[in-house]
């Protein structure tokens, strides 16, 4: 009978060698990445790893996530059984779980038996799902079915193995089969049930077949694991440990010194964590299913970007290790292993992919690194961005309007300049609030509300400059760096400490990006301030703006997902209209982008359905009279979209306008 160590041991050594080689081949490539510190706050990291890797918090938040949870935990439990199997294969009859104390053995055997059954059910569910309703059409890969089949084989073989061993015990001991099996069912319910059927058969043959089937499936699994997407079993846990603890809402600084490279044009320009990310992706497709570009038919697919980085690294790793250049370019035609320029420019930087990824892969910063390479090193970018870049650098606003026009919005108002000794808040108006004829109304509404609440505030006036959000997200870090340094110097010189913004893009840039330049500002979005003023009773809601009718609120990506401000704008709308706003199907951290972030505001959108139309149609399902926004870009995108679908009766209003409508009209 089996096992036969003289056959088993060499096979085991061979498969362990393949496993080690596969791991080495891939993981050693990670060292090609650039240095990055991901070892701060070890305690927090450990907790995050427990919650997200072992607790699978993000995995179970979506349908079929629980299925994965079962497979994951069964896998951990079955590590015990498989260790026993391997040791038993090497040293037959010396190491068996059954030799453990009875009190320990019984629960362990029970857990293993039940976990095996649950795993078998879970892989069956997974296979049926992949067949009938895959997470995305290309997910029906041979690889996926192969690994599911392999797990199923392991489970079936181990049941058969246990069942034959129970049967052999009955035959050898002469115990009464019925009473023995009924006792055994309390320990190994599935195996004991199966044993009843096996009893009359050729047990020796079945046992040998099951033992070797299990052994071979295990070897195949070990060999296959590090050479496939299933490597995530090894990498996803450290990936959760090393994930960025702060929200990935900024991009790293660049050092503008002659001789440096800018952005990432070759795969080893990425950090080691970026490369680890690429080995942690198991291609679940959750990112592409929430990506506004992917959904509306653009060439960008965040899953494919990560996959392409991995393939490019595998193809060029050997050359890069020798210090040679890549043979295949990272930015190219978009075949496997290269990312197309069109997909790089399709990203709205909305962050939905990063919010959806169960193992915290950071797709968006990788795309921006590619943009940086295109803009800064190759100066290849869509034509319409040339004007934007020159306007931003030359006149510090996206339209290239004369900077002297920046204060025209308040020419009829009594607005005071910011003075560090007498004013508390700087109201940073932003380019849209200063120059965009529609958005100027928001600036006016907000300034009137500030006065009504008795807030001490002022503006920088003609000294205000663009925050640089769009150029940074578009990868023009050189120009952003210049703009940021100028602004930071102005803020320090003017003694600015507290800032109100009405634009989530200014908000995130001043709050998060400028911190990299050593400027810690207390930045508050106008929706938060208005909410606070209502709560403190400084704005008394003695009237409501009922003429707004049914309202629906759209989350701006840079307010919500990137900065976790979800409740404030909703509370402002509720206070101002007397009723809570309706919610779209995709809301809060699952909200769908308006299409204007990441500099897409300034670019044409020729491929697929327009992102803003998709979102407008989603809003109209709620039959609103007013769509409420808290961002000038969202406002433009919604107003344009409503015109396209000829929904002229629906208004778009900023939260400040709604509040002003209630209190000032």
């Amino acid at each position: 009978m089996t096992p036969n160590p003289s056959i088993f041991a060499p096979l085991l050594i061979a498969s362990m060698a393949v496993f080690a080689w596969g791991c080495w081949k891939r993981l050693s490539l990670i060292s090609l990445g650039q240095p990055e510190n991901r070892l701060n706050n070890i305690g927090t990291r450990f907790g995050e790893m427990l919650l997200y890797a072992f607790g699978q918090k993000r995995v179970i938040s979506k349908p079929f996530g629980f299925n994965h949870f079962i497979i994951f935990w069964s896998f951990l439990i079955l590590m015990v059984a498989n260790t026993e199997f391997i040791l038993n294969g090497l040293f037959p009859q010396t190491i068996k779980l059954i030799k453990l104390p009875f009190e320990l053995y019984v629960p362990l055997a029970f857990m293993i038996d039940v976990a095996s059954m649950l795993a078998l059910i879970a892989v069956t569910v997974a296979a049926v799902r992949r067949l009938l309703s895959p997470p995305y059409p290309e997910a029906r890969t041979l690889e996926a079915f192969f690994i599911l089949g392999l797990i199923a084989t392991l489970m079936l073989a181990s049941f058969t193995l246990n069942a034959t061993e129970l049967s052999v015990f009955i035959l050898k001991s002469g115990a009464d089969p019925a009473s023995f099996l009924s006792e055994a069912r309390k320990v190994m319910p599935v195996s004991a049930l199966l044993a009843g059927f096996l009893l009359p058969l050729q047990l020796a043959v079945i046992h040998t077949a099951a033992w070797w089937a299990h052994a071979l499936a295990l070897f195949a699994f070990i060999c296959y694991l590090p050479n496939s997407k299933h490597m995530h079993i090894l990498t996803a846990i450290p990936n959760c440990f090393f994930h960025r603890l702060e929200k990935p809402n900024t991009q790293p600084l660049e050092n503008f010194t002659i001789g440096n490279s800018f952005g990432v044009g070759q795969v080893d320009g990425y950090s080691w964590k970026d490369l680890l990310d690429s080995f942690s992706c198991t291609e679940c497709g959750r990112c592409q299913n929430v990506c506004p570009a992917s959904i509306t038919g653009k060439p960008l697919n965040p899953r494919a970007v990560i996959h392409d980085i991995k393939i490019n690294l595998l193809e060029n790793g050997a050359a890069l290790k020798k210090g040679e250049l890549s043979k295949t370019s990272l930015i190219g035609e978009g075949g496997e292993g290269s990312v197309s320029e069109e997909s790089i420019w399709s990203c709205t930087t909305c962050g939905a992919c990063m919010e959806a990824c169960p193992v915290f892969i950071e797709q968006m910063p990788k795309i921006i690194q590619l943009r940086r390479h295109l803009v800064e090193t190759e100066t290849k970018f869509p034509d319409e961005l040339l004007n934007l870049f020159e306007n931003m650098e030359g006149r510090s606003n996206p339209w290239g309007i004369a900077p002297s026009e920046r204060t025209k919005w308040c020419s009829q108002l009594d607005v005071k300049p910011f003075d560090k000794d007498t004013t508390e808040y700087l109201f940073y108006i932003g380019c849209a609030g200063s120059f965009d004829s529609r958005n100027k109304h928001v600036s006016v509404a907000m300034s009137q509300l500030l006065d009504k609440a008795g807030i001490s505030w002022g503006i920088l006036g003609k000294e205000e400059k663009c925050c640089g959000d769009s150029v940074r997200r578009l990868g023009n870090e050189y120009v952003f760096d210049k703009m940021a340094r100028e602004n930071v110097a102005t803020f320090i010189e003017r003694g600015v400490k507290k800032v109100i913004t009405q634009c989530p893009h200014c908000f995130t840039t001043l709050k998060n990006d400028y911190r990299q330049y050593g400027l810690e500002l207390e930045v508050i979005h106008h929706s938060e301030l208005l909410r606070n003023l209502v709560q403190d009773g400084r704005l008394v809601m003695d009237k409501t703006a009922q003429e707004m009718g049914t309202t629906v609120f759209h989350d701006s990506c840079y307010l919500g997902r990137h900065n976790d401000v979800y409740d404030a704008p909703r509370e402002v709308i509720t206070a101002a209209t007397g009723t809570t706003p309706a919610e779209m199907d995709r809301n809060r951290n699952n909200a769908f982008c308006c299409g204007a972030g990441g500099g897409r505001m300034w670019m044409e959108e020729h491929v697929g359905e327009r992102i803003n139309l998709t979102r407008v149609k989603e809003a109209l399902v709620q039959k609103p009279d007013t769509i409420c926004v808290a961002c000038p870009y969202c406002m433009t995108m919604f107003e344009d979209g409503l015109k396209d679908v000829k929904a002229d009766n629906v208004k778009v209003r900023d939260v400040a306008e709604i509040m002003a409508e209630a209190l000032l009209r």
Partner: protein
Amino acid sequence: MLIVVCIKQVPDTTQVQIDPVTNTLVRDGIPFIVNPYDTHALEEALRLKDRFGCKVAAISMGPPNAEGTLKKALALGVDHAILLSDRVFGGADTLATSNVLAAAIAKLHAEVGEVGLVLCGKQTIDGDTAQVGPGIASRLDYRQLTLVDKIITLDFSEKKIRVSRKLEGRHEIVEAPLPAMLTVVRELNRPRYPKVQMRLAAVEAVVEVWNNKTLQLDEQKIGLKGSPTWVSKIFSPERDKGEILGDGYADPAGTAALLIDKLMAKDMLPL
């Protein structure tokens, strides 16, 4: 073969303010840019450099702070950047300016390399005379091809150029021997964007400054003394017609109706 591009630093504003006393432009607090037409001349020179491997020199006459304009040219890829700056060059009209620029081009021709082409923008957005380019051609006795919107053929060995000139309502195809001076229009090309590496190098690069000690020009032919043109008055045109109707945001339909009424009353809408 050397291509020389003449560029000028101009104030960046559509609302040029004029000092009523001196009749000159008020330049305080207004940022400077490269004259937009000159950026197309520069781009064309760089394209010819990419194609033929020739060298490009950018020259500019102006105050010391015009160095920034030449640094931008360096960032885009010119090989030589020369600032022609001297107090005695100041106050020049188009004749005196072309004298200085022509002398600089002649010096480049003698010391750096044979000049095949001189490229200028069709005019500057501050003076709008369109005279300096042709002036240079006259001083140097080069062929002048103005308002070029396309270089059709260029042969440095045969010393021949064939261009398209954009005139009102028509195009003119002209051929000329080299050396030639071209003034260019915006349709000629789309200027490139500078690479960061080049920008950083340009920050470190030195812009050569030539004054009148270098050029040795007769002071009667340069600057204020060499300028027969005197500006007697500059003023912003008064708007004697036109008005703003209604409020298009608060009442778009009503405002449109106002406009229609107005146009109908003037019999400008054939109904």
